[in-house]
């Protein structure tokens, strides 16, 4: 997969547009495998993350890499998007700069609540030595304009 670097030092992966499938909520299957990928966590990435969150000891820059959403984006073109309704994350070992991180993603669940469709995506990260780092789940509400209507009146 082609890569370059952002100003923050993060390795960028480019996804060829033609390779993505259009996301269809009704067709998405619980347990379906999403993209699996690897990247090297650099010290520069860790430093950028710590600056962004104002915590010099922050240990899990993987939170900003958004492993599960990235796994989804590597498989599907999702033009509707979603709003993050919740996150569950378990921490096992902090990632070590210079090590390769391997991520596997899947669709953990999907359901309707108050007539709104939710998609639960999950990613598990291990490093090149096989250390389990983090397991992350995101509850995406797939009608983002529904909540936007409520938020916009705020002044």
């Amino acid at each position, binding site marked *: 997969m082609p890569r*370059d670097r*952002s*100003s*923050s030092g*993060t*390795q*960028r*992966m*480019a*996804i060829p547009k033609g390779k993505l499938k259009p996301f269809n909520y009704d067709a998405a299957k619980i347990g379906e495998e999403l993209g699996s*990928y690897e*990247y090297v966590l650099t010290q520069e*990435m860790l430093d*950028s*993350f710590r*600056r*962004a*969150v*104002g*915590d010099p*000891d*922050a*240990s*899990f*820059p993987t*939170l*900003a*890499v*958004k492993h599960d959403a*990235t796994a989804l*984006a*590597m498989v599907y073109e999702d033009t*509707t*998007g979603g*709003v*993050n*309704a*919740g*996150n*569950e*994350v*378990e*921490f*096992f*070992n*902090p990632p070590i700069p210079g090590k390769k991180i391997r991520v596997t993603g899947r669709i953990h669940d999907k359901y309707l609540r108050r007539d709104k469709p939710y998609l639960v995506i999950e990613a598990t990260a291990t490093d090149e030595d096989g250390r389990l780092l983090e397991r992350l789940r995101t509850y995406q509400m797939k009608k*983002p*304009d529904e*909540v*936007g*209507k409520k*938020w*916009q009146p*705020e002044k």
Partner: protein
Amino acid sequence: MATRKVAVNDKLPSVTKRITQESINDFESCGILDRENIHNSPEIARQRLGTSFPIASGRMSVTYATEVMRRYFGSQVFNHSGSVNLKFLRPVKAGDTITVTGEVSESERVAQGVKYTVNLICQNQNGDQTAVGVGTAVVP
């Protein structure tokens, strides 16, 4: 590292963060996909949410809650046994100030030690809750 003495009803020291569009953009730039989204693009926020402003990723609040937990339990404990589970209630956007507080709500003996559960609340400068949930850590 000495293990902290933890008790139910203990209040964790809070963390307060000022949210700017720059901090939101910096957080987004840590991703490995070069994508514009509802966090860093006003246009995409307008198209998808119908809002006139981008919103901060909920994962920023998760990171702040993680800081509260790690500072209290210590990195040797939290980074190897911790969890954070947040439900997002309101948008966080540039100009907001978010304070994360926590209180130990229960303890349970498990094989590896004692598992503590902390009720976590993220509040904005108006006193509105933006996220609620729990964190856990297992103290050997």
